[in-house]
C-alpha cells in the first residue's frame, strides 16, 4: 500500500530550476494514484508545452516518487489537457511569485 501523502511530500523536493518553486506547489501534479499494488501512476503537466526542462522534471518526479515506501513501479504521464493555469498554484507559490 503506497502512502500518497508521503509521495506528495517527497515530490515537494523537486523544483522547477528556473522558477524555484516545487512541482506540487506549482500545481504540475494532476493525479497520484496506486493503480495496482505497488504501482504508482502519476499524471503531470508543465507550465508550457515545449518547456526545455520537461525531461528533467518528469524524470526527477519519477525518481523521487520511486523512493517512497511501497512503490514498486512508477508510471509518469505528461499531459497537456487540461493545460496548466495559474489557478493551479498553491497560495505559497503565488506569494513567492508576488502574484
Amino acid at each position, binding site marked *: 500500500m503506497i502512502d500518497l501523502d508521503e509521495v506528495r511530500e517527497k515530490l515537494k*523536493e*523537486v*523544483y522547477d*530550476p*528556473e*522558477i*524555484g518553486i516545487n512541482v506540487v506547489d506549482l500545481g504540475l501534479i494532476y493525479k497520484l494514484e496506486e493503480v495496482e499494488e505497488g504501482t504508482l501512476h502519476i499524471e503531470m503537466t*508543465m*507550465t*508550457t*508545452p*515545449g*518547456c*526545455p*526542462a*520537461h*525531461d*528533467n*522534471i*518528469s*524524470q*526527477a*518526479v*519519477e*525518481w*523521487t516518487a*520511486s523512493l517512497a515506501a511501497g*512503490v*514498486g*513501479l*512508477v*508510471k*509518469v*504521464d*505528461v*499531459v*497537456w489537457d487540461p493545460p*496548466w*493555469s*495559474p489557478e493551479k*498554484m498553491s497560495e505559497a507559490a503565488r506569494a513567492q*511569485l*508576488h*502574484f
Partner: protein
Amino acid sequence: MQTLARTPAGGITTSQSPPFSLPIRYMLLGMVGFLVFAVDLVIQSSGLNGHNTFLPSIVALTHLLTLGSLLAFVMGAVYQLSTVAFLVPIKTVTVAKWNFWLYAISIVGLIISMMVWWVMGLMIFGTLAVIAIYLYSLIIIWSVMATNLRGAMQWFVLSAHVYLIVAVSLALLLIISFMVPGFLANVYQPLLLSHIIFAAGGFFTFLAMGFSFKLLPMFTLSHGFSTSRQKWTLILLHIALWAFIAGIWLNDRSALWVAGIIGIAAFINHLFDVRGIMKKRLRKNTEAPIYAVLIAAYSGGFAFLLLFVQLGVALQIAGWQEIVTFYLMGWITLTVMGFAYKIIPFLIWNERFRKKIGKEKTPMIADLLHPNRAKPVLIGFLAGLILLTVCSLMEWIPGTVIGTLMIGASIAVFAIQLLLVVNLKKVGKER
C-alpha cells in the same frame, strides 16, 4: 523497483532538444566574438563616426558584430529554441555540427580579409561563409516546416531565414563587384543598402520578434495573453521591408516614407503584444535581462522614428549610418544580450545538473548567474548607446568616444560573465 516515464498515447512529444554540443559551440563562438568585438570597438573608439563607415577597419568591426558575434550566437540559440518553440527535432544535427567549422573558419578569414582589404580573401572566405549560412538556413527552414504547430511565430522564423539567404546572396554580389571592375558599379549603393535592410530589418528583426513570442512568456511565466496581433506585425513588417527596398531601387522618397510609417506601426503593434504578455505574467519581479528585451523593442521602434524624421524632415538619406548603428545595437544586440543572460545559464544548468535533480541538492539556474548581475552591464550599455547616438548626430567627437568606450566595456563584461558560466575547462568534455 521499475520506473517508466512516457507521454500519453497519441500525445505530442515536447522534448526535442539537440545535443548540448550543437548549440553551445555556436554560442561560444558568439561569446568570443562579442569579446573580440568589444576590444576592437575600444581600440577604434576615436575613429568612429558616420563618415568612416567604409574604412576597411570599420567594415571589419561591423561584421565582427553581425557575423562573428550576433549571428554566431543566434545560430546556436535557434538550433536550441526551434525545438522548444515548434516541438520538432533539428533535421540533421551532424551537418549542423560540421557546418560550424565551415562557418567559424570562413568568418575569421572573411573578417581578416576585410581588415586588410584583400579582395581575393573576401571572395574565397565570403563564398564559404555564404555556403555555411545557406546550409544553416536550409536546416532551420526544413526543421521548422515540419512542425504541426501553426501560427505567426512559424512565419516570423521562416521569413527571417529566407531574408538571411537574400542578405548574404547580395553580400556575395557586392564582393563580386569588387573583383570585377564595372560589374554592378551603377547599383552599388542600392545593393549595399538592400544587403543591410535584408540582414538587419529582415533576418534579425523577424527572428527577434518571432522568438520573443515564446521566450518572453516562458521566462516571465505569462499565460492567457492574446496572440491576435502577431499576424499583423508580421504583415506590416513585410510591407515595411519591401517598401524600403522599392524606395531604394526606384529612388522614390515617398516609398521610403511609407516604409518608415509602416515600420513604426509594426513596432507599435509588437509593443502592444509585448505589453499584453507582460500584463499577464505571473512572475511579477521582472528581471533586468527581461527589461533589456523590452527596452530593445522600444529602441527598434524609435530607430524607425528616427529614420522617418531623417527622411521626412532632413530630406536626406545621409546619416543612415548612425540610425543603422542605433538599430543594430539598441534593438538587435540588446535583445540578444537580454535573452543570452537567460538562455546560457539554463543550457549550462541543463547539461550539468539535470541528472542530479531530485537525487541531490542542485542549484537554481539563477545561482549560476544571477539576473541582477546583468543590471549594471545593461545600464552601461544603454547609457553608452544613447551617448554615442546623440553625440554622433551632433558630431561631438569626445561624446562618441566616451559612448563607444562604455558600450565596449559593457559588452566585454557581458561576454566574460557568460564565458565564466560556460567554464571552458568543463565545456570541452561535454557531449
